């Protein structure tokens, strides 16, 4: 909404430049910025239709400065023709159109507007067309009530009928668009045909033209929801519809009608029929509001006294009577937003000035039990991952449906997507990570360790609202972990790295992995391995499935992991009890076995653990060798085994005995030879 400062000055006196005026209005709740010296631009909130006019903004200025509001004076010259003799108004749907008023002006001459009017209109961005159209626009901008003018001679049957449209009924609006109605649209018709889409736009068939002489001026009150719904369904928003849908002044519409008739007769030389056609079947009630005396002070947090209340209400045109317990206030009909005491308190607070209200900061302790942040442990987990080199990303939850289908079956679709690329909700965090991998590879960043924590979605007809939201933490690595340096070679990001990450994570959260082995069925990844603690899955790791790389054009190996957040955060929330530090020295023995190549290290380890008795506390694979020193179908595997007792010092003899049994069983079962 654009306000001309010159026009505004004709309605209220103020001694402010455009910047100061904008600041004043902004501080009062009507966000404004200067558009040079002569206009200000308002960014109005939908609760304030009263400010969609120069008079409304002038009233704000008057409220905030104390300067008096100067309403335009209206002097109607009336002719002898009585309006009712010739014309009637019928409202068929009075819920949708509670009031419809009209005046008739005859014998006008359509022509250009005077300069003062066209320049004011142009200042607020409206092109001057002719005196009839301009007057309607002028009154709209001055008083805020939308008006419509019909060429009376084009109205058939000497009447206006306001009715809901029939489904499929077609009209041609002023913009020469043919529009199909449904039975929610409200139409203004004459005795034969629709002549306007109520509150939104007129029809071409009754438009005022150069040759028009007699005019019917419409000034009506339409139900805001009806107009809103009509405007939305046709995707057609006009200056009129924007005001009607926010709520117009159902009493002030008469003033707007008179003002239009006055200006028309003044500028186009017409004769105004005596009387108003006013169909108003059920008077709209404007209800009084009870405001308890201290309630404003209590809610705002400082004293709002009676004097201030009276002064403010009077400036806002709220009529107010003192009662036993407080005030009885009747808001003006141009303020549809004032219905309850709290609405009046807001008026008092904003006029008092938010800056003037004191600040009160006293922390009164915890109101209820302190609840641990459910994401507290996820935050620690993120710190852990960042600490070992992972970058956290945040990717779009909306994605391409074809790509999503590569990851899951039950994809949740958006009804009104922005584009094909963002038409469904992500079923997995992998596509976002892959997108980021691709993005970085394209920018010469080949060594990547990324993770994301977020919500993924699945469609599920049986679930509440037909969807399931799950919290995931997923990561991808590729390239080199530690690019070759002068002391070491490349250390690739690969499956064993991820396995190590999961093992370290288990250590970090103080759990012992009971198993980390090839999954029976790979679901998430290729060569999937599942790390578990007892029977709880802690994490899945593996290579990114090649079918899921379709379209990414990435030709380097990628590995991923997915963490079971429920399990991990549960474990992290548990306090692990202190374990006594070992009092007796451990005995460490190294064993190097030579075994056939097909024997897996894990098989040897399993046997070692079996025979190690409960004195065995740790088995580490420290070396793996194939080459000159061993025959070609063999490999050499070294384990470091630690024995410890809580009760006593171990003797070499007993460890010798255990060692013997380990050597024996690995030889018997796996053909391993101690080297």
């Amino acid at each position, binding site marked *: 909404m654009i306000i001309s400062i010159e026009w505004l000055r004709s309605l209220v006196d103020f001694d402010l430049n455009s910047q100061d005026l904008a600041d004043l209005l902004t501080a009062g709740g009507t966000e404004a910025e200067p558009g040079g010296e002569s206009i200000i631009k308002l960014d109005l909130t939908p609760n304030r239709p009263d400010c969609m006019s120069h008079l409304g903004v002038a009233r704000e200025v008057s409220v905030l400065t104390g300067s008096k509001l100067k309403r335009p004076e209206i002097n109607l010259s009336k002719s002898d023709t009585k309006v009712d003799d010739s014309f009637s108004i019928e409202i068929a749907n009075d819920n949708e159109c509670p009031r419809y008023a009209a005046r008739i002006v005859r014998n006008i001459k359509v022509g250009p507007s005077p300069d003062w009017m066209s320049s004011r209109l142009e200042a607020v961005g409206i092109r001057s067309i002719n005196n009839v159209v301009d007057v309607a626009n002028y009154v709209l901008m001055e008083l805020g009530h939308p008006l419509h003018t019909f060429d009376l001679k084009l109205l058939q049957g000497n009447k206006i009928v306001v009715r809901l449209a029939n489904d499929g009924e077609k009209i041609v609006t002023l913009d020469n668009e043919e529009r199909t109605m449904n039975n929610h649209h409200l139409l203004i018709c004459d005795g034969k045909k629709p002549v306007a889409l109520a509150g939104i736009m007129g029809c071409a068939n009754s438009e005022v033209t150069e040759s028009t002489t007699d005019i019917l001026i419409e000034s009506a009150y339409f139900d805001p929801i009806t107009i809103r719904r009509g405007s939305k369904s046709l995707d057609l928003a006009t200056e009129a519809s924007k005001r009607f849908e926010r709520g117009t002044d159902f009493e002030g519409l008469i003033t707007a009608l008179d003002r239009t008739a006055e200006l028309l007769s003044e500028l186009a030389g017409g004769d105004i029929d005596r009387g108003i056609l006013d169909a108003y079947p059920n008077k709209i009630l404007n209800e009084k509001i009870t405001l308890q005396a201290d309630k404003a002070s209590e809610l705002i947090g400082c004293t709002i006294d009676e004097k201030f209340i009276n002064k403010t209400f009077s400036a806002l045109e709220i009529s107010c009577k003192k009662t036993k317990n407080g005030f009885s206030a009747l808001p003006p009909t141009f303020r549809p937003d004032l219905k309850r005491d709290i609405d009046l308190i807001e008026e008092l607070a904003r006029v008092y000035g*938010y800056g003037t209200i004191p600040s009160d900061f006293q922390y009164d302790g915890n109101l209820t039990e302190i609840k641990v*942040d459910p994401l507290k442990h996820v935050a620690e987990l*993120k710190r852990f991952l960042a600490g070992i080199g992972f970058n956290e*990303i945040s990717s779009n939850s909306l994605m391409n449906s074809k790509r999503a289908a590569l990851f899951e079956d039950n994809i949740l679709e958006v009804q009104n997507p922005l584009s094909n690329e963002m038409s469904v909700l992500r079923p997995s965090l992998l596509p976002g990570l892959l997108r980021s991998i691709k*993005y970085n590879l394209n920018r010469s960043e080949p060594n990547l360790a990324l993770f994301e924590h977020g919500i993924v979605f699945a469609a599920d007809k049986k679930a509440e609202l037909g969807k399931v939201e799950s919290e995931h933490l997923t990561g991808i690595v590729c390239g080199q972990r530690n690019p070759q340096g002068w002391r070491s070679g490349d250390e690739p990001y690969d499956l064993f790295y991820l396995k190590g990450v999961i093992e370290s994570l288990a250590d970090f959260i103080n759990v012992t992995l009971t198993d980390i082995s090839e999954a029976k069925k790979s679901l998430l990844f290729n060569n999937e391995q599942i790390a578990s603690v007892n029977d709880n899955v802690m994490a899945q790791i593996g290579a990114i499935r090649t079918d899921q790389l379709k379209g990414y054009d990435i030709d380097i190996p990628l590995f991923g992991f997915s963490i079971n957040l429920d399990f991990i955060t549960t474990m992290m929330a548990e306090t692990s009890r202190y374990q006594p530090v070992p009092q007796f020295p451990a005995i460490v023995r190294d064993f190097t076995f030579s075994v056939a190549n097909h024997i897996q290290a894990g098989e040897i380890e399993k046997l070692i653990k079996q025979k190690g008795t409960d004195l065995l506390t740790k088995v580490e694979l420290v070396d793996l060798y194939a080459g000159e020193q061993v025959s070609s179908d063999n490999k050499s595997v070294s384990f470091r085994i630690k024995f410890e007792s809580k009760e006593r010092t171990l003797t070499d003899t007993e460890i010798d005995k255990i060692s013997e049994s380990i050597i024996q069983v690995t030889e018997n079962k796996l053909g391993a030879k101690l080297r």
Partner: protein
Amino acid sequence: MTLQDKINNIKSQFADAVKGLSLTKKEVSDIKNQFLGRKGSVAQLFNEMKNLPPEDRSQAGKELNILKSELSTKIDNLLHAAADDSTSSLESSIDPTLPGDFIPVGSIHPIEKTIQEIKNIFGAIGFNSVYGPEIDDDYHNFEALNIPHYHPARDMQDTFYITDDVVLRTHTSNTQIHVMEEQQPPLRVIVPGRVYRNEAISVRSYCLFHQIEGLYVSKNVTFAEMKGTLEYFVKSFFGQNVKTRFRPSYFPFTEPSAEVDVSCIFCKGSGCKTCKQTGWLEILGCGMVDPDVFLKVGYDSEKWSGYAFGLGIERMTMLKYGIDDIRLFFNGDVRFLRQFR
């Protein structure tokens, strides 16, 4: 001879063996054998333990272990010294300007950093963190917040729909309703989370962003308290010298409503491009909880009052770090991400 005597004996023998000598590796290893080998003097003492009365054995074992570890530490040190000895010529040729073993460190996403920081600021004054669904029904996202169908306020937020009744939440305010439905006052919560707007992607706007919603409901909560609390927040987040400005605004679910501006952190209020020459930056919306919202969740608005606020994490983060393109948050560019530790 008591065990203690024997231990002392061994200690002095060891001291003699290593005294005053610049030992070679071989010599150290011989000494190691002599004392700690399988048949060395310490092992012999261990063997003798079985002659002790059973009740003394545990104590003896402990003392012998201490001796053993003491000696092996000393021997290890000697071994190191010996090794260094033999490589002293190499050491002097080491180039100290060679780089260290750099350990690549990862990063926490700036949005997450901001969320955690804000959680800490409000956590310190008793706000619990809670979370709500990203997809919700029309009722919790709009209706219960005084935004019925065909309300012009719906234009303030372009919405993604899953069905006619299910939406991608346009604000974390949906969780206000969930919290109040499940919990009786008094309560003090913040709700961080992802929200969605059907807006074309540009430098300034993205189809999703993150918000933190705050809600405080108790007896006699005032607008002045809301001001004080949010001023505390602004100072904690942006610094002590930042000024705060409250101005009237409109949100359907709060009344009175306010928009909060902070004095521009770039130009200190004198006017620059970021603040569009106004000296102020808009950072959050807030207001006293509308009695109709209390009515919807079954709270008695005569008994309870409260305030709610909502702030955009991306905006806060952009202001804090001077980031000028919102898309940087979402494309996963490690050159950007690595700047946030």
